[in-house]
C-alpha cells in the first residue's frame, strides 16, 4: 500500500511538473512571436502546412455534417410542423457548436499530430541541439511560427466548416426534402445573431486553436527523442487536445449562452 501511495504521489508530481514545463514553453513561444512580424515568410510556410493542407478534410467533413444535420433536423422538426425552422437549426448547431468543436478535433488529428511528430523528430535528430549551437533559440525559431499559424488557421477553418455545413444542410433540406427556400434562409437569419452566435463561435475557435496548437507543440518539444517517445507524444496530442476541446467547450458554452 505505501508503495502504491508513493507511486500515486510520483504521478501527481510528474503531472504537475509537466504542467509547469508546458507553461514555460508557452512563455518562451510567445516571447518569439514579436520577432516574427519581420519574417512573414516563416508564418506563411507554416500557414500552408497547418492551414491549407487541412482545408480538404475540413470541407468534406463540413458538407457531410451539414447534410446529416439537414436530414435529422428535418425528420424531427417536421413532426412538429416546423420544418421551416430547419435553416435555423442547422446554422445554429454549426455556428455555435459543431463548427468550432469538430474543426478543432479534426485539426488535432490532422495538423496537431503532424506538428508533434515533426518537432519530436527534429529533437530526435539533434536539429534542436544543432540550432542551439548555431546560436539560434529553437523554441523561438521553430515553435513560435507554428504557434501563430495554428492560432490563425483555426478560426478560418471553423468558418469554412460552418459555411460549407450550412450549404450542405441547404442541399439536403431545400433541394432534396423540399423545405421552402425563402423560409430556410429567413428563419436562419431571424434565429442567428451576429454577436451571440457568430462572434462567440469565433472566440471558441480561437480558444481551441490556442489550446490545440499549444498542446501539439509542447508534446513535440517534451517528447522523449526516440521513435517510441515521439509516437507516444503524438497519441497524447490527439487525446489531450480532444479532451481539452470538449471540456473547454462546455465551459465556454456555459459562459457565453447563459442569456
Amino acid at each position, binding site marked *: 500500500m505505501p508503495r502504491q501511495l508513493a507511486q500515486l504521489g510520483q504521478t501527481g508530481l510528474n503531472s504537475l511538473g509537466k504542467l509547469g514545463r508546458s507553461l514555460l514553453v508557452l512563455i518562451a513561444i510567445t516571447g518569439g512571436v514579436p520577432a516574427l512580424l519581420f519574417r512573414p515568410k516563416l508564418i506563411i*510556410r507554416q500557414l500552408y502546412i497547418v492551414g491549407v493542407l487541412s482545408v480538404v478534410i475540413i470541407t468534406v467533413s463540413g458538407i457531410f455534417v451539414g447534410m446529416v444535420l439537414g436530414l435529422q433536423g428535418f425528420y424531427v422538426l417536421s413532426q412538429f410542423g416546423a420544418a421551416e425552422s430547419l435553416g435555423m437549426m442547422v446554422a445554429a448547431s454549426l455556428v455555435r457548436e459543431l463548427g468550432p468543436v469538430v474543426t478543432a478535433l479534426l485539426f488535432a488529428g490532422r495538423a496537431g499530430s503532424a506538428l508533434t511528430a515533426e518537432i519530436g*523528430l*527534429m529533437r530526435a*535528430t*539533434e*536539429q534542436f*541541439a*544543432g*540550432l*542551439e*549551437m*548555431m*546560436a*539560434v*533559440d529553437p523554441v523561438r*525559431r521553430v515553435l513560435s511560427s507554428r504557434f501563430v499559424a495554428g492560432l490563425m488557421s483555426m478560426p478560418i477553418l471553423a468558418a469554412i466548416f460552418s459555411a460549407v455545413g450550412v450549404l450542405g444542410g441547404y442541399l439536403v433540406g431545400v433541394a432534396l426534402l423540399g423545405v421552402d427556400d425563402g423560409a430556410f434562409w429567413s428563419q436562419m437569419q431571424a434565429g442567428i445573431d451576429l454577436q451571440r452566435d457568430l462572434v462567440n463561435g469565433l472566440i471558441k475557435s480561437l480558444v481551441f486553436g490556442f489550446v490545440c496548437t499549444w498542446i501539439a507543440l509542447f508534446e513535440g518539444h517534451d517528447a522523449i527523442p526516440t521513435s517510441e517517445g515521439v509516437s507516444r507524444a503524438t497519441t497524447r496530442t490527439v487525446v489531450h487536445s480532444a479532451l481539452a476541446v470538449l471540456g473547454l467547450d462546455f465551459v465556454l458554452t456555459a459562459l457565453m449562452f447563459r442569456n
Partner: protein
Amino acid sequence: MIKQHKLWQSKSEVKAQITDRLAAILPGEILVNIKDLCFKRGSRVIFDKANLVIRRGQVTAIMGPSGTGKTTLLKLIGGQLQPDSGSIEVAGFNVHQLSHSNLYFLRTRMGMLFQSGALLTDLNVFENVAYPLREHTKLPESMIRKLVLIKLEAVGLRGAKDLQPSELSGGMARRVAMARAMALDPTLILYDEPFTGQDPISMGVLMQMIRKLNDASRLTSLVVSHDVQETAAIADQIYLIYGGKVMGQGNPKQLLDSDSPWIRQFMDGLPDGPVKFHYPAPDLQQDLFTHA
C-alpha cells in the same frame, strides 16, 4: 533608463571583448582551457576532475571507449550543459558564467558538427548552409549566395545545393553540416564522432577535410572519436579519457609508442585489459544461484 542603457553597453562590451580576445590568441596558445571538470548524470560520474587544454590552430582529439562522455564534453564546451564543478574557459571567458546573449554570441564563433549532421529537414542543402548567415548577418542575398557556394565548394558539394537533406547519404550530410558549421567562419569547430558509420571512402574524405579545413581556414578543431587509426592520422594532440579522467595525452606518436597498459589496450583494441570486458556485476555464481 540610464541604468538600462549602461547594462546594454556592458553587454556589448563583453561581446567586443570576446571578439578581441579571440583575435588576439596566437597559434599554439591556449584557446579552450578545461579545469577540474566534474559532471554527473544522475548517480553516474561522467567527468571527475578532468583537465584538458585546446590550443589554437591545432586539431585536438578526444578519444575513449563508448559511453565515456565525449559528446557530453562537447555539449559542456558549447554551454548546452552545466558542469557540477570546475570551469571551461574559451578565450579566457568562463562559458557557464556568460549571460544568455553573450553565450549565444560566443556560439556564433563556434561551429559544431553533430553525428547525424542535424541538418534542418525542411530546408534544402543551400538553405541549410545559408541559415546561420541569414540568422546572424544582414548580408544581401547575392553575398549570401556567394558565401554559401564557396563553403559548399570547400566540401565538394556545390553540385548538391538543391537537394533535400533526405536525399543525402550520411557522409554527404556530414559534409553539408561541416559547410554550415563554417558558414560564419568560426574560430573553433567541434566534431562529434565524424567517422562513425562511414564507408572507407567517405571516411578518408572526411579525415582529409577536417585537416585541410583546419589548416586552410586557420581553424581550431576538436574531434571526438573512438576511431584510433583515423584520428591518430590527423590529430596534433590526443587526449584519452576513461572513467571521467584523462588517462593519457600527447601527440599520436607518443601515444602509439606508450607502454602504459591502458593506453596500449585502447590503441591496439584489445578486448580485455585494464578496461574490463564485463560491465560491473556481482559474481556470476552468486547471481545464478541466489535468486532461484
